[in-house]
């Protein structure tokens, strides 16, 4: 029996239509509801991580002032902050949230290909979050081993949470990976197999490309984390020695021998480095669409952008050991991984140039999403450049355990993706709710956040050059660190408290606009991609009414000469002088892909 693609199936193809409150909003199989559930959960758990970071900052800025924070709870805060932010907030919000919401809409599909599996994905994710949160309430508290969970320290007595907390962390990660796999298989299959008529992959918005490649990275990288979590669970509970060498702890010989702690680091970073791009690539994609829409210009070098995403995705699997220059591995590895690390900067830089060139001579509208998107370009260049420093072995060795690294990765994969998240939330909020967010509040929120993060992280680079070590609960009296470093630390803490407080504006805006925002209509920004062309906002279950959309052009026909509007939606037929084919062909002949 020949298989009929989604776009060719007859229109009365049966769609289950939820009626009761429970099937509509709780056990919903609608990708839009699942996306909101994913996003809401991720933001809630992210707030927990934000509070933890404030605890750390209070201790660092004003040591000895807060009895609440002892060394153990400081390390527990460090660990949980890192793990929650990277895995449970950013991964879940970009892929589970925006991936779920945008993929079917941007692909012109009615839903994900397997809606039930998609629903299951969210509930299993929620379970993993609950398991993780439960570790705050067990004896010994959550694990304090650092977010990288390096053995042997993770398992040896003396590390906070070495009995129960770490076990809950490992189980939670395992459950999260199961949830991610169920969702991820859905996202990839939907993009590959369920696109609307005329929607070739080279006409997809870059958001979909970023999310697609990031999901593929996740499907190939999370297995390494799963395996290391399984092995560590056995080391912990059964007394195997996968990662544990013969070791003394607190004057006692532990019952381990012959394991390899470096093996854990390799497995962890084989997951950990692609994870950076699992977070970054969706951000790259989403920000491209926001920039192009609000600059009223086509994205510069679309094909180059797509290939850069793919190249970054591929390269991200061969750079992992640049996190391990100080681990004592073979120096020749350092040479290899430094080289690949510098190579991955090339496609990344291409993307940055293309964003800037997209803005060049654009009809830029400086509304809130655009401000956040441009802010991202700044912070990303900043964080990316320090990445070049740290990619080199000789520079990394002295800087590796200092605040320079903290500043680097917070700029590049903390602040930058979060700015994109804000840009995207402000940009797609009208589609999700049918109402605009308040511009004034949004702009105040932007400037507080953007300038505030610089006030936090720029001085940290300087602290790093001074040699202030990271991961320390308190500096004590250390000769090579001048007194003034403490003053700087206090200032950073004040800035951090200010930025955290500024986020309240965002939440006020979200809830206020839900009722009082200006009704947005279907396409408030004048955007071209399919999700803005639905007949109802927010789109009803099934997204498109009786007929699926048919796509006639790429997603970036902005300001086309000879067309009455300054944008042509993807589903409008006809040739208006400039089309993407022209653009592609010249790019093929003259661009970097020419032979």
């Amino acid at each position, binding site marked *: 029996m020949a298989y009929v693609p989604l776009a060719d199936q007859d229109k009365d193809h049966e769609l289950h239509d939820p009626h009761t409150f429970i099937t509509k909003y709780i056990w919903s199989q609608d990708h839009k509801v699942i996306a909101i559930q994913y996003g809401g959960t991720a933001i809630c758990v992210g707030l927990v991580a934000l509070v933890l970071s404030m605890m750390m900052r209070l201790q660092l800025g004003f040591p000895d002032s807060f009895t609440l924070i002892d060394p153990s709870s400081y390390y527990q805060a460090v660990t949980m902050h890192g793990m929650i932010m990277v895995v449970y907030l950013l991964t879940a919000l970009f892929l589970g949230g925006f991936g779920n919401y945008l993929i079917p809409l941007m692909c012109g599909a009615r839903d994900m*290909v397997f809606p039930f599996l998609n629903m299951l994905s969210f509930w299993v994710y929620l379970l993993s979050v609950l398991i993780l949160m439960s570790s705050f309430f067990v004896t010994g508290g959550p694990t304090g081993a650092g977010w990288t969970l390096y053995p042997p320290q993770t398992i040896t007595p003396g590390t906070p949470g070495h009995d129960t907390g770490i076990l809950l962390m490992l189980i939670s990660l395992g459950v999260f990976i199961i949830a991610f796999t169920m969702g991820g298989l859905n996202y990839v299959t939907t993009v*590959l197999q369920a*696109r609307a*008529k005329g929607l*070739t992959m080279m006409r997809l918005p870059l958001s979909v490309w970023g999310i697609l490649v990031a999901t593929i990275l996740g499907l190939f990288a999370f297995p390494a984390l799963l395996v290391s979590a399984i092995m560590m669970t056995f080391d912990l509970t059964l007394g*195997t020695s996968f990662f544990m060498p013969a070791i003394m702890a607190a004057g006692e010989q532990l019952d381990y021998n012959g394991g390899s702690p470096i*093996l854990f680091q390799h497995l962890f970073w084989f997951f950990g480095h692609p994870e950076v791009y699992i977070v970054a690539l969706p951000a790259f994609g989403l920000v491209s669409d926001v920039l192009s829409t609000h600059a009223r210009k086509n994205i510069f070098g679309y094909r180059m952008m797509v290939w850069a995403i793919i190249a970054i995705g591929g390269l991200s699997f061969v750079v992992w050991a640049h996190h391990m220059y100080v681990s004592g591995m073979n120096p020749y590895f350092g040479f290899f991984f430094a080289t690949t690390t510098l190579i991955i900067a090339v496609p990344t830089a291409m993307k940055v140039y293309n964003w800037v060139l997209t803005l060049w001579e654009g009809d830029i509208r400086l509304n809130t999403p655009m401000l956040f998107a441009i802010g991202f370009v700044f912070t990303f260049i900043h964080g990316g450049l320090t990445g070049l420093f740290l990619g080199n072995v000789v520079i990394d060795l002295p800087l590796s355990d200092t605040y320079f690294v903290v500043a680097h990765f917070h700029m590049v994969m903390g602040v930058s993706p979060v700015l994109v998240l804000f840009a995207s939330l402000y940009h797609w909020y009208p589609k999700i709710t049918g109402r605009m967010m308040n511009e004034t509040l949004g702009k105040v929120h932007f400037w507080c956040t953007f300038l505030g993060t610089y006030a936090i992280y720029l001085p940290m680079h300087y602290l790093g050059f001074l040699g202030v070590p990271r991961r320390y609960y308190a500096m004590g009296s250390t000769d090579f660190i001048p007194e003034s470093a403490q003053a700087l630390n206090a200032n950073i803490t004040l800035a951090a408290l200010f930025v955290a407080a500024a986020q309240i504006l965002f939440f006020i805006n979200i809830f206020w606009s839900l009722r009082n925002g200006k009704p947005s209509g279907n396409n408030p920004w004048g955007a071209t991609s399919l999700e803005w062309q639905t007949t109802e906002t927010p789109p009803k279950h099934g997204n498109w009414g009786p007929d699926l959309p048919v796509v006639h052009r790429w997603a970036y026909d902005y300001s086309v000469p000879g067309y009455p509007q300054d944008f042509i939606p993807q589903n409008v037929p006809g040739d208006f002088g400039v089309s993407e084919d022209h653009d592609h062909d010249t790019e093929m002949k003259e661009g970097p892909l020419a032979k």
Partner: protein
Amino acid sequence: MSEAVASNLDTPKSGLPGLVNDWTADKQTYHVPWGKAMMWIFLVSDTFIFSCFLVGYMTVRMTTAEPWPLPTDVFALSMFGSDPIPLILIAIMTFILITSSGTMALAVNYGYRGDKRKTMYLMLATAALGASFVGMQVFEWSKLIGEGVRPWGNPWGAPQFGSVFFMVTGFHGLHVTGGVIYLAVVARKVAKGHYDKKGYEIVEIAGLYWHFVDLVWVFIFAFFYLW
């Protein structure tokens, strides 16, 4: 209208642009059902899991300070009063699993021909072979446990031997067990005529999973038992 839709596809291109055009074509990338595409992606992901297990095994085998027990001695079995024959049980298990791949392939063929009875029986035969594989694994586990092999130690040398053995064969055994259940469920639905309208791709999708599990076993056999 359809011309406009296919505008950038109707000029055939050669070389890299042509390849890209084929792969990024209209509507769907592969002309297969969703379930089949998804199963393939899942299997690639699962390959990474087993690869990580095997790489982890090789690493600890290198780092451990104690000698690695000889698989030929550990996995020897005396049958009918003979001297212990090295690897005989594993050889039989491997043979059974590979045979089950054959019956699975036949089931897929009969599925596409619409022969429900034969499809169901061949799938059940596959499941039965898989179940007997798991049964023999249980026998092997209990024999080794009886001889004192534990995840944290064994009488013959490196403690990692037992750790890796139980972890890797256990993880694979879980895959086989899941596959047996999966096959049984699909076979029942085949018999009930559940796929008459939808088509019998599901049999092939189940088959993909089953062949994958067999293929993984070949690698485990080569790297763990023969090395």
